């Protein structure tokens, strides 16, 4: 028997938007002892540095900045009985659901949980992760790090900037650096399309005449101490084409080249990870492969919108509270199978007995598409189809399958996307 210092019904690891919504929902669904463990000095997570607006249109029905969205949820959680421990790092979670953590104030603590929600979010890929050739000069940083410097610490990382990657953070930082007086010379994207939201191409790049180089990548960084020059080349697939080089004199390179769910703690707790999402395999109620351990938000799959993180976390928090209060879910399991055109799905497993009316399945398609058809089959028979006028890997898709259809289908649910016949 393991010793522990405290006991909670639901322990939530991470106090960003996922953790706040999970805690709020766990309290609303009957849990009386709920704890959020946050490693930063306040809750809110990355929202606190996302000073731009556009958050909350789905959940609050108005357009908020990141700090406003975080502030509203922090206030909602303060109105519940949930405890919050800040400045505290979770070191390990055991399969027996002992959460080991450390803080300056309380030192080492072991906390016993009846249910756990993993809400650690994700982290940015770095230069090392994508192996950009060239000098190891200073002035090369991830877009999120630059965002923290500018918006929270009050430092400008540079004056002449090249941004690699056209994900939303890269686009947002192109505008932010421009507004603060820097010159953004180029946003460079390996793919033939942007991975960011269309609205961000319009309001972050087009509004400020920042050029977007699609099908290009950085092939050299030059600079003895500080970045002096960046060379980009057009690519054929992933291969740079000789002779297409363009040089930019600049002092800063920002990287917006993808996010990786942060699951080291999950893996040690025995949670199975899906290689496609790099997050946990989850059931319809966001439970992972370990009973009583749930996960939600960007630690499961990287979302485009915080509103969807909130929605997912409300379901995870509710399920964690129900588990802590003794509810057990069983019955038949349907595996969701990705077929051509679909990169991954969340959830990956559905238990029809645990569905009240319908189940929402989130996924991403593999390329930019015009008129398309999403087909849902079971044992080769089509049970549902959905039409879309426009699809892109940068835009998460959602379909809703009614329980009556699940009850009729076999043990697998195959989802594919194809171009519509015109």
């Amino acid at each position, binding site marked *: 028997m393991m010793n522990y210092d405290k006991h909670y019904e639901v322990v939530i690891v991470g106090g960003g938007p996922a953790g706040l919504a999970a805690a709020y929902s766990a309290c609303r669904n009957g849990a009386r002892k709920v704890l959020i463990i946050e490693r930063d000095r306040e809750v809110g997570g990355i929202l606190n540095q996302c000073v731009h*607006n556009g958050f909350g249109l789905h959940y609050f029905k108005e357009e908020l900045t990141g700090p406003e969205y975080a502030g509203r949820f922090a206030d909602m959680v303060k109105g519940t009985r949930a405890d919050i421990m800040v400045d505290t790092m979770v070191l390990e979670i055991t399969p027996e659901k002992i959460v080991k953590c450390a803080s300056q104030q309380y030192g080492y603590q072991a906390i016993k949980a009846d249910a756990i929600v993993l809400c650690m979010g994700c982290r940015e890929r770095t230069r090392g992760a994508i192996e950009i050739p060239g000098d190891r000069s200073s002035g090369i940083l991830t877009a999120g790090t630059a965002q923290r410097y500018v918006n929270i610490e*009050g430092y400008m990382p540079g004056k002449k900037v090249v941004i690699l990657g056209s994900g939303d953070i890269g686009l947002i930082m192109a505008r932010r650096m421009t507004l603060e007086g820097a010159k953004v010379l180029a946003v460079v994207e390996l793919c033939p399309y942007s991975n960011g939201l*269309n*609205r961000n191409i319009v309001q972050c790049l087009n509004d400020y005449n920042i050029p977007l180089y699609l099908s290009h990548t950085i092939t050299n960084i030059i600079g003895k101490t500080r970045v002096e020059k960046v060379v980009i080349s057009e690519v054929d697939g992933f291969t740079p084409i000789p002779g297409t080089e363009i040089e930019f004199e600049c002092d800063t390179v920002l990287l917006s080249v993808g996010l990786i769910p942060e699951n080291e703690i999950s893996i040690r707790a025995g949670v199975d990870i899906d290689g496609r999402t790099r997050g946990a395999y989850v059931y319809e109620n966001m439970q992972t492969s370990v009973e009583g351990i749930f996960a939600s938000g960007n630690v499961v799959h990287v979302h485009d919108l915080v509103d969807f993180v909130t929605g997912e976390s409300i379901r995870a928090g509710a399920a964690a509270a129900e588990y802590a209060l003794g509810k057990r879910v069983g019955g038949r399991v349907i595996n969701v199978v990705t077929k051509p055109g679909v990169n991954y799905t969340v959830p990956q497993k559905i238990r029809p007995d645990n569905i009240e009316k319908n189940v929402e399945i989130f996924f991403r398609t593999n390329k930019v598409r015009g008129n398309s058809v999403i087909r849902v089959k079971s044992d080769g028979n089509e049970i549902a189809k959905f039409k879309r006028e426009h699809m892109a890997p940068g835009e998460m898709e959602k379909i809703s399958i009614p329980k009556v259809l699940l009850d009729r289908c076999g043990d697998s649910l195959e989802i594919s996307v194809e171009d519509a016949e015109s």
Partner: protein
Amino acid sequence: MKELICIVCPKGCHLKVDEENGYSVTGNACPRGAEYGKKELTAPTRVITSTVKVRGAIYSRCPVKTAAPIPKGLIFAAMELLNDVELQAPVRVGDIVIEDICGTGIPFVAARDL
């Protein structure tokens, strides 16, 4: 006929605006898209967010935003106004930071408690 991508919400509808027929909009999924399409071609506006200096708080910057969209042409003039602002904690979300941005009557407001 002008093609636009709606920026009102993250959905990003592909709009078609007919300049010759009273800026009638098609391709919008909601009424706000029609309003945006017309406005974007006649008098485009944006909400501007930034930060200002703050003393006595856990951080040295406080996020701010325009309380309503301001004309696109005033973006850099509005940014200029923020350079001289220095707040003193405590700050409450919604506190007015600058009362009137360039004669628009629209204020800059604080976007968090600090």
